[in-house]
């Protein structure tokens, strides 16, 4: 059964068509990737799925339930949670309390929320920082905190907006291992990523978007060889040169 089914999704900002008739299906347990040049409409798709924008047309089904028109917090309750590309920590709270806000999604009890948050922090190797203020965290740790908060809400589908951005190669390796384990625990992932290494080694399905339209879809290495994709990323000239 499809966990996520997006059909004919369209969003316009004035005269600009940011997303144009986008389709995508994800099965439970899959890792999907969303790539494309800057401004292609990837983050807009995330904003549409998570309820921050209302689509002009199209449907978003999650477990056969239509998400269109629901507010972000209701969508989070249903099990679809997104992270932000530019991390948005709660600055005047400690690391633990940041995660507890997420954990309260599934419980009303502060004690349970705290226990669950400590587990998540342990898993993401942030335990020793739990009482630290956000200012003292490095950018890598802030990205992990963003992930920790989302995980604490106990999602079924996690939308990751460039979690590997700004990390060095060894940090990317760590992150890949973490994401694999999250996926193994039964969380379906959909990720926007610029770091090809991450997406190529994780995703089993990639959709490429350019100017709001899907130009290719399939397994990572098939997609990367697709002439349309090469053209979108590197331009016409490269295409011609390779043909010769």
């Amino acid at each position, binding site marked *: 059964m499809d966990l996520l089914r997006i059909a004919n999704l369209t969003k316009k900002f004035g005269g600009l068509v940011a997303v144009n008739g986008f389709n995508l299906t994800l099965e439970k347990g899959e890792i999907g990737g969303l790539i494309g040049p800057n401004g292609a409409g990837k983050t807009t798709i995330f904003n549409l799925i998570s309820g921050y924008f209302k689509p002009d047309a199209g449907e978003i089904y999650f477990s056969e339930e239509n998400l269109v028109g629901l507010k972000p917090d209701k969508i989070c309750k249903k099990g679809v*949670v997104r992270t*932000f590309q530019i991390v948005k920590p709660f600055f*005047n*709270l400690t690391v633990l*309390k940041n995660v507890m806000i997420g954990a*309260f999604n599934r419980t009303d009890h*502060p004690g349970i929320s705290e226990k669950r948050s400590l587990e998540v922090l342990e898993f993401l190797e942030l335990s020793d920082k739990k009482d630290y203020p956000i200012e003292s965290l490095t950018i890598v740790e802030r990205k992990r905190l963003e992930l920790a908060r989302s995980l604490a809400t106990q999602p079924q589908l996690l939308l990751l907006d460039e979690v590997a951005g700004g990390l060095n190669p060894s940090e990317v390796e760590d992150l890949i291992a973490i994401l694999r384990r999250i996926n193994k625990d039964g969380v379906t992932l959909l990720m926007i990523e610029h770091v090809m290494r991450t997406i190529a080694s994780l995703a089993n399905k990639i959709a490429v978007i350019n100017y709001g339209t899907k130009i290719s879809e399939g397994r990572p290495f098939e997609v990367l060889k697709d002439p349309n994709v090469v053209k979108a990323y590197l331009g016409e000239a490269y295409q011609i040169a390779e043909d010769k």
Partner: protein
Amino acid sequence: MVLLAFFLILPLYLDAYFLHIMIMTFLFAYLSRSWDLIGGYTGQNFWGPSAIFGIGGYTSTLLFFYFKLSPWLGMLIGGILGMIVGILLCYVSSRFSVKGIYFGLATLTFSQICMTIVLNVDAFGGVNGVLLPLIKGNSLFQFQFHGKIPYYYISFFMMVLSIYVMHYIERTKSGYYYVAIREDEDAAQALGVDTLKYKLIPTGIGCFFLAMGGTLHAQYLLFVNPDFFGLPFTIEMIIRSILGGVGTLFGPIIGSFILTPLSEISRGFLGGYRGVHMMIYGVIMILFMLFLPRGVGTWLEKLYDYLESFFEGKIRFSG
């Protein structure tokens, strides 16, 4: 506990003037604590607390004036009315996406509208306000006393209550959610926080308390007038919270204990020279803002932490 006992026996040793200062200190600590739940914890620019304060004062006073209803009941009714008005104000604003400083201006304007209405409706007493009909002797039921001591205990009790309620809320899921909304509304929503609901709840609670404060003030002065809705009350409440530390449990209380005596005493000593006490008051405010921008409460907390680690270190060193 020691502090509690101290404040309970204190009135036995104070004369009427200092009792008055203490009552005003408690009252403003209470009001500022109530405002801070909305403006500090949830971070909404609620710049019209005097509207709710005035509604509370006028409701109980008018009910007593026209229907001889006990001000205690009037206090409750005023509280509920204030709560409804506050929630409506917040709901309508967010319905039309009036946010941030624009919400602030809307609430500020609302308090001025209330003031204008009261000024121009004769049933509400117009410019002169309403004098509470005096009754003979002390009466707890009618909320009227000749001495100041009963008012001292009532206002002290209300201040302690407001601290206790905040202390309780802080530990619940709601308390966490309020702070999350203040820090980042979008991020909070992404994590499943129903931001509208968790803005309306603290607004309702805060306004309930603000309106009850209006009744207390009216019973203490034994009259209400349109000044209850005025900007000065709003500023006094907000400034105490800012000076003590916005969004902290004891910040507004500390702010009131510094500012209220200061304002009362400077008025007492320099009242002869018109405006001088306001100037001194202003200079002291500026100094606090300059050197302790995050509030006295936050600074005290840091000082306490520092001293604690300092002494711990010393003990370990000598042992």
